[in-house]
């Protein structure tokens, strides 16, 4: 059958034919993970002439597998976008004295494209100060915060490359954005009512609202469709290829080189090493839970800030008794999730924020906080709805929750409310970390990742300040009422950061500025685990900039025969 791909079970021909390798072939690189970082590494390394096998835990889904129904993944576990907590449980506790309990702290995209398939697509560059906070602001008590071994200027060309290679919509000139060498490739997405209200509120408070940089196409770009503003964007995969995920940007281009295989339903369980301490490949479970070893000259881990350290800790040998690349003891440590401060505002007229992309305006005046406040870190704001129709059951404090009285208000709650979202930095602490749970196993018999986490006191103060400022923004925007009270560190979620820190000192970091493991010459780690600091809330842009830079550094090392 031809012409109507949705009417057949034939694969949709959106991808070129894919080269495959035998596990016994020694490929140049095995990359673990195909998400924001893994996708970039696959495309860049294969473009540069290397042979690449990407091991991805999840399936290779396309547009026809996606749905706007929040229960889609429950009905079709083989088409779920994120990890299944039943098969792959995580456990968490506050301190070492507590018994860790089952929890969903580690949320990640478990499909080709990883979390970029369902993300909100906020693409904020880190400000210059992000990379040198220890020097500029000192190290607070009970924190392990440090300077990055690189600076904004080292990353700037790669931030620009991200914007142009995957497609980011936005407008240059935000006074709080660090210097850029090129404008955005695409104009901003259309402003929404939330954006207009944020402009109204922020301007009254003397702040500077600006069009949001979003990894969603405002116009057709590089063979992909522009956004059709379908709505319910957050948490969902795009059905028109407008969301610039690795799935529709990097992965097809990697496959098209003829040098890259995306091997799905492949769950890495051990990085193999030889007697001289070099990696030789990766052992993984295939779709039948059979162990397979893929041989490689070098290995890149881009599995996310939980799965990457988990894999290193599971790869312990007599030569690496505390886990691979862990002579520093830093693997799994310094974990950060970002923080959030949320308030809901109810307005007089319809906002209908469920239509279109989630965010259209941001405020970054709070990237750097006035020293007089005594707060470490900072963040930014947006106004958003991001509701799906299941939010139709919403209530409002002090108003009836059921019966005809509630029913008369239900439409107001759904169409006339929005959230102010304060996105914040988080401090790493000496004791916050992930490791392997000694008791709980996953469906493959591998240890569950265990989180030990207590938010730093500064981050609760920062959250309280952002919450109060958020209320002021809502009131200045004309909200009739404001609800909500939380502000502080997130104790889990999709921003899995800091667990394989980048640094110059092998005693206090896991990889060097080339993303090369201090302990293992042909092992590279490229994902959110490398973050030395958490950023002001939106990590994916920086994860991809790091990946583009890492691929250049790794290629140089190969050319210098330094691998």
């Amino acid at each position: 059958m031809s012409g109507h791909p949705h009417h057949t079970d034939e694969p949709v021909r959106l991808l070129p034919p894919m080269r495959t390798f035998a596990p016994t072939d020694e490929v140049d690189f095995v990359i673990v993970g195909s998400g924001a970082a893994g996708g970039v590494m696959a495309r860049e390394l294969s473009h540069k002439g290397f042979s690449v096998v990407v091991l991805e835990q999840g399936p290779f889904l396309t547009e026809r597998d996606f749905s706007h129904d929040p229960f889609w993944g429950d009905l079709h576990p083989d088409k779920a976008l994120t990890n299944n907590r039943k098969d792959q449980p995580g456990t968490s506790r506050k301190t070492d004295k507590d018994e860790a309990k089952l929890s969903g702290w580690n949320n990640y995209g478990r499909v080709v494209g990883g979390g970029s398939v369902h993300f909100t697509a906020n693409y904020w560059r880190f400000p210059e100060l992000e990379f040198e906070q220890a020097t500029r602001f000192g190290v607070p008590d009970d924190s392990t915060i440090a300077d990055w071994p690189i600076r904004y200027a080292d990353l700037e060309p790669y931030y620009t490359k991200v914007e142009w290679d995957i497609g980011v919509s936005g407008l240059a000139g935000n006074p709080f954005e660090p210097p850029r060498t090129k404008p955005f490739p695409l104009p901003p997405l259309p402003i929404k009512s939330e954006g207009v209200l944020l402009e109204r509120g922020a301007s009254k408070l003397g702040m500077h609202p600006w069009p949001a940089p979003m990894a969603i196409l405002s116009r057709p770009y590089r063979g992909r469709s522009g956004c059709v503003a379908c709505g319910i964007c957050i948490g969902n995969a795009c059905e028109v290829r407008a969301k610039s995920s690795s799935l529709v940007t990097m992965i097809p281009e990697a496959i098209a080189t003829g040098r890259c295989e995306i091997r799905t339903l492949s769950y890495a369980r051990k990085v193999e090493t030889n007697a001289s301490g070099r990696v030789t490949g990766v052992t993984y479970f295939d779709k039948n839970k059979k162990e397979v070893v893929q041989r490689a000259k070098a290995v890149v881990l881009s599995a996310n800030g939980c799965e990457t350290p988990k894999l290193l800790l599971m790869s312990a040998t007599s030569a690496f008794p505390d886990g691979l690349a862990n002579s520093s003891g830093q693997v799994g440590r310094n974990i950060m999730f970002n923080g959030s401060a949320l308030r809901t505002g109810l307005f007089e007229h319809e906002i209908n924020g469920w239509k279109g992309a989630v965010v259209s305006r941001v405020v970054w005046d709070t990237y750097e906080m006035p020293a007089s406040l005594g707060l470490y870190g900072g963040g930014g704001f947006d106004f958003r709805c991001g509701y799906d129709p299941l939010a139709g059951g919403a209530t409002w404090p002090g108003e009836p929750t059921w019966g005809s009285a509630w029913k008369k208000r239900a439409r107001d709650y759904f169409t006339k409310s929005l959230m102010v979202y304060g996105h914040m930095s988080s401090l790493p602490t000496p004791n916050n970390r992930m490791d392997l749970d000694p008791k709980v196993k996953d469906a493959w018999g591998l240890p569950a990742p265990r989180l030990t986490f207590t938010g730093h006191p500064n981050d609760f103060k920062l959250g309280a300040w952002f919450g109060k400022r958020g209320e002021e923004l809502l009131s200045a925007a004309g909200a009739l009422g404001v609800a909500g009270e939380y502000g502080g560190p997130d104790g889990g979620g999709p921003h899995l950061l800091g667990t394989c820190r980048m640094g110059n000192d092998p005693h206090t970091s896991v990889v060097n500025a080339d993303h090369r493991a201090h302990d293992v010459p042909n092992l590279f780690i490229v994902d959110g685990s490398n973050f030395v600091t958490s950023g002001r809330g939106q990590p994916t842009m920086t994860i991809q900039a790091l990946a583009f830079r890492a691929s250049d550094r790794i290629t140089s090392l190969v050319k210098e025969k330094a691998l």
Partner: protein
Amino acid sequence: MQRRDFVQSMAGGLAGALGAASWSQLRAVSAHAAGIAESASYEFLTAEQVKLLDVITAHLIPTDDTPGAREAKVVRFIDHALATIFKDLQKDFTKTLADFSEFTSHYRPDGASFLALTPNEQIDAIGELERLKPDVFFDLRGVTMTGMFAHPEHGGNFGKIGWKLIGYEDRYSWAPPFGYYDRGRE
């Protein structure tokens, strides 16, 4: 039960057999299939539980000048969901209903069951439940709201009654202005 799977399988069959089938025809067929017939048997709930839930959900989202939980077939959703997407919640939900019955049986000194109360007494009893046993109340409210606003293919939100109530449309393509405040900015 899934719209896409259903439409896809129908499309394959019809298109294969007839060579062509219009999308409106296919949509009509699938819309009919999504509505569960009144007389169909329930998959999980007992007849007694169905009766009880019918009254509870109709108090939570009553039929007044617009349709409510009854017209949206919320109980059909609850039943079907407990047999499918909420399978893991069967035990918890059974206990919630038992807790509800136990609590409301103390409303009248004679120990009358919830269904034996007058409608006004029932409303009063649910109000007490909300104040004194908020966990039980919000479990029941949560599943009722889900049945009202989930995709109709799960058995509730019949005729998109819930979505019409809140002003949501599943058109999946919009252009500015999206709301009141961005008018004139497009």
